[in-house]
């Protein structure tokens, strides 16, 4: 019997990176397509995005399946159960759609969504998303840095914060008929947080335009903060001098602070934030400071007491 020794790996045995990446893309498009075909009754009116640039800010961690990303959502405008948004968001009309960029800026502008999409080249950002409820995902977003848009409107010296406002239209958003939150949903960032290269305006995921339940047609994604900081279906971006009031901050100020940076040491008053369950995994994993983006963002909070500024 011939016993073969395992040989050294030859260069030829290694899949070239671009082939590997193409494979990933192929698998991904396939899974997105399959999900689109296999989820009856769901508004899958997404179109393929092309010409994406890869980003050095992307993680190589395993992506959360498309089906989970698009059926397990917190989007109270369409109901408070995780399954509600995917069931109810088909009533959202994403065209025509405008985003008003206003406030303390030299060149305010009301953008038509399609003009906005043409004006800024879209790149892929594979980010971890950590929800304040203690679960997390890895999502391949498509978007562009919010900073690109901010530079265009030229904030004045009075612009210290950025406020985001979600659409308010109970006819399209049945969840808004209940008073569970103060509508419209508002969120905010400090200007330097908004300008940070990790902060993007996302217009797609998994190479497709955003499904309505994920915040179509355009949303913010701030990967080092809890998910609710990343406002969905944005109609207004306003530059202001005072720290804006946020929807969750108004609802429960002691539980949802303005900064809401992911922080395993600062617990939510009613549950621990030390660990999280990555969707699709059985065991919980440790939550990382700033959701693992500390190297890039920690300097934004130098000298700040993060327990007080939770």
């Amino acid at each position, binding site marked *: 019997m011939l016993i073969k020794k395992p040989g050294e790996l030859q260069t030829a045995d290694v899949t070239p990176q671009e082939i590997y990446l193409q494979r990933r893309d192929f698998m991904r498009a396939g899974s997105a397509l399959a999900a689109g075909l296999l989820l009856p009754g769901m508004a899958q009116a997404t179109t393929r995005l092309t010409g994406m640039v890869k980003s050095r800010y992307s993680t190589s961690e395993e992506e959360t399946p498309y*089906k*989970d990303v698009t*059926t*397990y959502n917190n989007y*109270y405008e369409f109901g*408070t159960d*995780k*399954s509600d948004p995917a069931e109810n968001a088909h009533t959202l009309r994403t065209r025509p759609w405008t985003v008003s960029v206003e406030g303390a800026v030299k060149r305010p502008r009301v953008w038509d969504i399609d003009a906005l999409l043409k004006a800024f080249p879209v790149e892929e950002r594979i980010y971890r998303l950590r929800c304040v*409820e203690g*679960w997390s995902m890895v999502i391949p977003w498509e978007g562009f840095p919010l900073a690109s848009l901010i530079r265009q409107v030229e904030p004045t010296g009075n612009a210290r914060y950025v406020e985001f406002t979600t659409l308010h239209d109970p006819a399209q958003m049945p969840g808004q008929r*209940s008073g*569970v*939150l103060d509508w419209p949903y508002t969120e905010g960032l400090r200007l330097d947080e908004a300008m940070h290269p990790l902060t993007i305006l996302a217009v797609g995921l998994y190479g497709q335009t955003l499904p309505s339940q994920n915040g179509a047609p355009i949303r913010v994604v701030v990967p080092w903060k809890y998910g609710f900081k990343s406002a969905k279906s944005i109609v207004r971006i306003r530059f202001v001098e005072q720290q804006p009031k946020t929807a969750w901050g108004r*609802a*429960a100020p002691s539980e949802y602070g303005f900064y809401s940076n992911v922080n395993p040491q600062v*617990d939510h008053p*009613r*549950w*621990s934030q030390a*660990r999280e*369950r990555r*969707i*699709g995994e*059985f*065991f*919980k994993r440790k939550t990382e400071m700033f959701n693992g983006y500390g190297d890039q963002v920690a300097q934004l909070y130098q000298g700040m007491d993060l327990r007080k500024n939770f």
Partner: protein
Amino acid sequence: MWNALHSLSLRQTGIAKAALFVAALVPLARLVWLGINDGLGANPIEFITYATGTWTLIGLLVTLAITPLRKFSGWNWLIRLRRMLGLFAFFYACLHFTTYIWLDQFFDMQAVVKDVIKRPFITVGFLAFVLLIPLAATSTTAMMKRLGGRNWQRLHRLVYTIAVLGVVHYWWLVKKDITQPLIYALVLAALLGIRLIFKARVGIPVVMPGHKAELE
């Protein structure tokens, strides 16, 4: 039909009991079925925790509904279903607790102890579960006899406290939308309110020959 329900023979009560036993296992069967068919959603552990918690609360409320129903309808045989219902509430509470300890925390006892002490909603939930244990343990006829009717009844009045703790546990864990816990709270308030009204109206229980006075 209505009159036929007024008094059931022992055999008929047995049939009713068996039917109820099967019905009470449906929520568990559904979870198993969904589990096999990948129907538990993106966060299966959360789904199971939520479902078992829900059925614990429903079990408790249905158990507490037996006495008022019996008083209003005069269907005395309902009392024979009560023990089983209470034990089913305990059964789902055990599943709920096991899901938390095993699937959610994976026996990380340090984390569990910290949770129980530090988090009010876990504290009240855990307390409700612990209080259920003596009730389940003394649910047998032999235990009833050993304790004596009076003591047994006193002990089992704990169920009111348990139900309140259970509803509070649910109330404190939701992020914002209290619609569901509110429904449970209103049902519980009605069930306990009815008892208070009866107590005020009846004052001293009338003891029927051959019957124990029951004022629960």
